[in-house]
């Protein structure tokens, strides 16, 4: 086996497995990570085929920029927004899997029927230009220079479009510090800052609520996100009464 075959038989299963797990994972963040794995193995497959520049661009642009954008939007939209598992169209899942399988089988069988001839290899093409990068540059800036310019226009349009789409006009003036302060005293039952989370010997974390002087738990001391997700710790009554006892003993001494 040549080195390329070894690389292929390691990378191709990773790519296909990552793709399947991307479609299969329930959480969108997991999907994004599996897609990143697939894209990195594809980058190495490009490099193994002599497309060195494309392999590097694949890692920089796809796994670097595009996957970062995906994860950024996922965080913006809310990581908890997992897929609903309710089927709105009956039998859609079975039909989708069957169609996908059919498409895959059709394409693989079609490729098996095609006679592709001998591989010419890229060595001659690369050597004619000097290297793979120089060869690509020659193609891009001579034959495809018009497409290159059009694509640059497309990129600028996309950037402007993203700015226009995500821009929001402020409908009312920004409240001043005085107005915010007055609103806090008028609405809220508790105008001061919220208590910080508890710090114990074993749990030095923001998910542990602080204890009030009488040993009861101050729920507001845990960040709202953790409380909503149900990740806040709840100290047992024994522990809280113990701490309260120690506090009173300390005051006595």
């Amino acid at each position: 086996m040549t080195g390329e075959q070894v690389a292929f038989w390691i990378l191709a299963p990773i790519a296909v497995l990552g793709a399947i797990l991307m479609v299969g994972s329930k959480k969108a963040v997991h999907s994004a990570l599996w897609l990143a794995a697939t894209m990195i193995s594809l980058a190495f497959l490009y490099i193994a085929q002599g497309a060195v520049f494309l392999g590097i661009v694949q890692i920089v642009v796809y796994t670097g920029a595009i996957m970062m954008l995906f994860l950024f939007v996922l965080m913006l939209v809310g990581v908890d927004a997992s897929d609903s598992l309710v089927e709105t169209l009956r039998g859609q899942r079975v039909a989708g899997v069957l169609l996908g399988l059919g498409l895959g089988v059709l394409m693989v069988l079609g490729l098996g029927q095609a006679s592709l001839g001998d591989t010419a290899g890229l060595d001659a093409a690369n050597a004619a230009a000097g290297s793979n990068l120089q060869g690509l540059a020659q193609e891009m800036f001579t034959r495809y220079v018009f497409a290159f310019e059009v694509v640059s226009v497309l990129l600028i349009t996309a950037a402007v479009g993203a700015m226009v789409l995500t821009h929001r006009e402020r409908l009312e003036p920004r409240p001043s510090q005085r107005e915010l302060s007055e609103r806090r005293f008028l609405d809220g039952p508790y105008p001061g800052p919220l208590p910080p989370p508890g710090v114990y010997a074993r749990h030095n974390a923001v998910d542990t609520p602080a204890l009030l002087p009488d040993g009861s738990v101050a729920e507001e001391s845990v960040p709202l996100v953790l409380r909503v997700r149900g990740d806040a710790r709840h100290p047992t009554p024994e522990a809280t009464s113990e701490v309260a006892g120690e506090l009173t003993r300390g005051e006595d001494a």
Partner: protein
Amino acid sequence: MNPDAYLAVSAMLFAIGATGVLLRRNAIVVFMCVELMLNACNLAFVSFSRLNGNLEGQTVAFFVMVVAAAEVVVGLAIIVQIFRTRRSASVDDANLLRH
């Protein structure tokens, strides 16, 4: 090495991506599946470029990457905007355009 194996992987990735577009509800995951299909096409382009011994396939694959980047930027901006108005990124909820 024969390009058949690479083309088979490319076809499988494309089919998996198409299945994901059909199955998933989360608009972001649907977008990821579209990206996977574009990547599968790129792999086929690179394989054919090597089979034919010229660099045009790689040039086209490069252009595909650029267009994919532009598509992701606009698509994710639309998803963010839909999420702001609907509080949901599910493709089932964005149905106000129908008759």
